């Protein structure tokens, strides 16, 4: 047998793991990925400005949020049960951290009557809700559908985005990231 043959055989057997191991790793890590988690390109960047009419007839500008951590919550009255599920957490959040945390809601493709009916039924809120009639704010934030919540630090930079209803575990994690002790 020529001296090169054992080396070729060794290379052939080495080629299998070299190809198969990365492929298996790629597929295996893909299995563990949550398809609902969508990374937002806004994370690490200044929050897009929010301005407009509010549900109670006033006006709102995100300039009012600067200087303290804030959350921007996209919601709608038709978003059931997710928006209903997270509503008590938002009410509790405002009650416990209202003075140190800025909060603003943004309606997503909803009617005034629908939104007001939702609050009548599930609890009035102390923070403003911007109407977002032309969906411009939804586009600026890359919102895929309510509920979605953006966590913003005191400098006005987006720290995290959560797609889906808020839970206590999510709030504990993300509030700590923007400097609010849960």
């Amino acid at each position, binding site marked *: 047998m020529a001296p090169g043959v054992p080396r070729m055989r060794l290379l052939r057997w080495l080629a299998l793991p070299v190809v198969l191991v990365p492929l298996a790793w790629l597929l295996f890590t893909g299995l563990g990925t949550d398809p609902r988690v969508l990374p937002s390109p*806004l994370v690490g960047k200044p929050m897009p400005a929010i301005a407009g009419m509010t549900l109670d007839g006033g006006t709102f500008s995100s300039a009012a949020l600067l200087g303290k951590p804030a959350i921007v919550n996209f919601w709608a009255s038709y978003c059931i049960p997710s928006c209903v599920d997270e509503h008590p957490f938002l009410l509790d959040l405002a009650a416990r951290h209202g003075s140190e945390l800025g909060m603003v809601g943004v309606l997503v493709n909803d009617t005034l009557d629908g939104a007001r009916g939702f609050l009548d039924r599930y609890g009035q809120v102390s923070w403003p809700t911007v109407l977002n009639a032309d969906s411009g704010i939804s586009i600026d934030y890359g*919102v*895929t559908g309510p509920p979605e919540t953006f966590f913003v630090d005191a400098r006005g930079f987006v720290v995290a985005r959560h797609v889906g209803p808020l839970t206590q575990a999510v709030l504990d994690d993300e509030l700590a990231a923007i400097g609010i002790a849960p």
Partner: protein
Amino acid sequence: MRRLALPVAVAAVLALGGLVALELLRPAAPVTQAEEARGIAGELRCPDCQALSVAESQTASAAAIRREIVGQLAAGRTIDQVRAYFVARYGDWILLAPSTPLVWWLPALALVAGVGLLAWWLRRGRGESGPSVQAPARDIRAQIGEEVEQLDA
């Protein structure tokens, strides 16, 4: 016949290259702004529906994105700038087609690599398992010759 193979192959490659060049260099038909807007909307994923483009969907979000596309084109932005505007907000997720053309070539590359690997494997296997016939060594041939001569004698 074999002498003709190379010129025919070269001529075929040149003809194919010429056709591709013609197709690439052909001036594109003028496109209206509405057609451009439809084209971009067809490339973007509807944010709140499944497996539909912004052009196909009837949701309010898709309609808002279509309005934004039209507004941006009217303001003088290019197709690439409008596309980049949405990618900056939604991420690459918003694009229905991958942004890098390399991805389209990967299946073809994998196929070529697989065929090449299979051919190499088969050739090696045939080389190893086939009958190995070795010419008899010169001294053995000489010995056989002597024995035959003895038998004839």
